[in-house]
């Protein structure tokens, strides 16, 4: 059974974009309500990653992503940022300016809450000091409508490492929940060996996954690799998001980790946002070049197509 089998989908394509409507299956709703004690209700949230504010290629993709999110037909409850919010600088004060600029742009998102974990460009040179000043803790958890969310920091040790202290915290954190609780982990680097010679791994990722292994419904959302990627290990589904600055190539197709060439004619190609719908935690990746169907316009277009 795949993740989409929980949903009854009706989709209408228009141009390169698509609107997915969903109704959670009643069986899964009652299951979550019964086991977690909280009556779940459908919601969605958005993952944005690798905005690299301050990078020479600029922030226009991030700004476009903000517009795209604000135009989504289904307004997300919150945004998860999975690291590399900023591009680091060793010039005194410059990195702090970039963090402020990031917050200015992110502040235009029409959502009540934003959650952040750092990437190595945010936190690896100073152990996360500047990140904490601007965004708070580098790891934490929260609950939302029956889903448990966990932010994991695998960058601020300087290496691709979570560390024994944080893993002990994780063990205590999840011990409060029954194994049926849906868990979403958001982090920067992959928690499995995707391509170690490109630094696409976390040294103690297996230790993290062992803590999560007893849980039936685990979703890992991460960034770092600047491309969409999906992987399953045990009960866990790992989803890498596109970046908002440039894309890396397919690691299975090339030996060289070189950014894909920038295309002036299509500056937002391979860049995108991700919307996740709960409780099924279905992932919908949206390239920034895609035309979104949203608001009144979207409904009218769907009606013309006879889909409503």
């Amino acid at each position, binding site marked *: 059974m795949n993740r989409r089998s929980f949903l009854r989908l009706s989709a209408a394509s228009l141009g390169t974009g698509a609107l997915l409507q969903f109704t959670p299956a009643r069986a899964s709703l009652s299951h979550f309500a019964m086991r977690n004690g909280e009556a779940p209700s459908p919601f969605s949230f958005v993952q944005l990653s690798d905005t690299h504010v301050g990078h020479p290629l600029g922030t226009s993709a991030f700004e476009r992503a903000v517009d795209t999110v604000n135009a989504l037909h289904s307004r997300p409850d919150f945004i998860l940022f999975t690291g590399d919010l900023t591009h680091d600088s*060793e010039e005194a004060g410059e990195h702090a300016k970039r963090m402020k600029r990031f917050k200015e742009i992110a502040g235009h998102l029409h959502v009540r809450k934003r959650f952040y974990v750092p990437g190595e460009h945010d936190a690896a040179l100073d152990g996360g000091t500047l990140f904490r000043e601007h965004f708070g803790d580098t790891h934490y958890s929260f609950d939302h409508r029956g889903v448990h969310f966990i932010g994991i920091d695998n960058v601020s040790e300087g290496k691709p490492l979570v560390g024994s202290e944080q893993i002990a915290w994780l063990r205590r954190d999840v011990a409060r929940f029954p194994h049926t609780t849906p868990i979403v982990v958001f982090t920067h680097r992959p928690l499995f060996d995707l391509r170690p010679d490109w630094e696409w791994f976390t*040294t103690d990722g297996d230790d993290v996954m062992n803590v999560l292994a007893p849980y039936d419904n685990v979703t890992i959302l991460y960034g770092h690799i600047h491309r969409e990627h999906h992987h399953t290990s045990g009960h866990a589904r790992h989803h890498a998001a596109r970046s908002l600055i440039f894309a890396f190539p397919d690691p299975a197709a090339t030996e060289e*980790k070189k950014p894909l060439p920038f295309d002036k004619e299509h500056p937002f190609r391979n860049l995108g946002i991700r919307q996740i719908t709960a409780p099924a935690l279905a992932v919908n990746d949206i390239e920034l070049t895609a035309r979104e169907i949203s608001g009144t316009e979207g409904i009218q277009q769907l009606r013309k197509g006879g889909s409503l």
Partner: protein
Amino acid sequence: MKKNLFLFALVVVINAKRFEFSPSEVHLKRGVPVTIRLVSTDRKHGLSSKPLGLELDGNDEVTITPATAGTFHAICDHYCGAGHGNMKMTFVVE
């Protein structure tokens, strides 16, 4: 006599500075123990190659016995700045 030959492993020193290793290519013999010593000369670096069992950080060393012939890439896995992503070297096991 042959048994004693490897009591003292060969030592290969890898100097690391932003954003390069020196030497950038090292040849090893399959089945022959070798000590890989990482020396970070400007700031902390790492030297990581999963197939070779290398996971060094800062100023550190490990003795390995390469089991498989081939070409293996190693990377700096301790973030060291803007050029960190391209800081890598090659081990050739013959």
